[in-house]
């Protein structure tokens, strides 16, 4: 069996996140590094999933390059997004529930 579910994309061996190539359901079991991992929540295509456990303040690596740092602990199989990571350069602005313009 292949080490990764075909619906997950590991862009670089050095990465600690993988990218969803399809919309995945919460609770679904996916194969990561040869092990079965249960997804914490629904993952939309293009979003990132933790490949390993993180502490707060660790670098997140995608494309083999640092893309920011974690702001909380993250468990393997959880989504890695703006609720648990941030830029090391510039703040990111998001819609807050579809309205407004909030700094994260």
């Amino acid at each position, binding site marked *: 069996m292949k080490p990764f579910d075909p619906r997950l994309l590991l862009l670089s061996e050095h990465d600690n996140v993988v990218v969803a190539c399809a919309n995945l359901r919460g609770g679904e079991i996916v194969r990561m590094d040869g092990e079965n991992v249960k997804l914490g929540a629904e993952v939309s*295509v293009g979003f990132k999933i933790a490949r390993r456990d993180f502490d707060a303040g660790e670098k997140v690596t995608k494309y083999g390059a640092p893309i920011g740092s974690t702001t909380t602990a993250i468990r393997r199989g959880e989504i890695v997004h703006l609720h648990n990571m941030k830029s090391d350069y510039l703040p990111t602005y998001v819609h807050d529930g579809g309205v407004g313009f909030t700094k994260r």
Partner: protein
Amino acid sequence: MRGWLRSDGRKGIRNVVAVAYLVECAHHVAREIVSPFRDRDVHLIGFPGCYANQYAYDMMRRLGAHPNVGAVLLVSLGCEGFDRRGLREAIAATGRPVHTVVIQAAGGTRSTIAAGRAWVERVRAELDAQPTVPVALDELTVGTICGGSDGTSGLTANPAIGRAFDRLVAVNAACIFEETGELIGCEGHMASRAATPQLAELITACVEKAARYYAVLGHGSFAPGNAEGGLTTQEEKSMGAYAKSGASQIVGLIKPGDIPPRGGLYLLDVVPDGEVRFGFPNIADNAEIVELIACGSQIVLFSTGRGSVVGSAIAPVIKVCANPDTYRRLSEDMDVDAGRILAGEATLDEVGDEIVTLIEAAGRGQKTKSEELGHQEFILTYKTFEPIGPACLPAA
């Protein structure tokens, strides 16, 4: 491909009449002049500001002499700061038909619209009778931009455009990628691809300039929709955006309005020089598309994940859709379904080849999706740039 040979030796793949308002106060009159010709390659462009700006002047001069433009009508209110005489003379020197209508001198709105339409009607007929010549890929300048990016952009559409760029550069076309604010974090890798050590230093410095500029603004080149599509940070977006450049050597660093002197891959620096003065370097994607066109791009490749629908005045835009879900929703607006790559239904090379094939089709006169739908967006605002130095360009 076939196109129109211009006096400077460049060739256009469209033969557009550009109608340009020189201040917002002349915008309505210019739009009314264009409206009966909207399906006949008469495009509206313009600059809204009343106060003169060298960048805006240079941009309009380059756009008026763009290979895809066959004739230009300038629409002036009369009292604005734009150097309408200088612009008309610069365009006339290229051999193109050019004419100015001044609202305050022509008797107001109705008479100016009538005079403008009469001129456009006559010149449109002249352009329609002009002969065409063969156009080869190495006579093209191709720009690329990404807009409405999401977590799939950097996996499918952007690297596929990179493959298309590699193929175009290999046959000596000029290819331009841009948006140094979306290359923050990639400067070291980019510098390692520069043709000369001097160019490497200049590339690093221009990304540092972008980082400083955005730090002052307190905001990166990152929209809320990017986050809704799975992207988190400027540096993550940058890594994906950078993939559009492909793997070729970078031979030059240009600024808006600079024309690549020969084929190869160029980085376009769109972040203004000097202190932060006129706000965001790129208020929306079309500001950058216009800058790519002012650098001579006859065609623009636009990568989108969330689903931008824009096209542009003057040059056809090919939209490469990164996200398979977006493609299903917005297929009428998308030229390429690069999301097939995620499902393993196509490779990056295959989609790169498809993009080159579509460029050639557009060069034979086939309309892109945004052209068919009538998209002719255009934005030009205030900026300030210092001229580039000799180390920025390859030997001609």
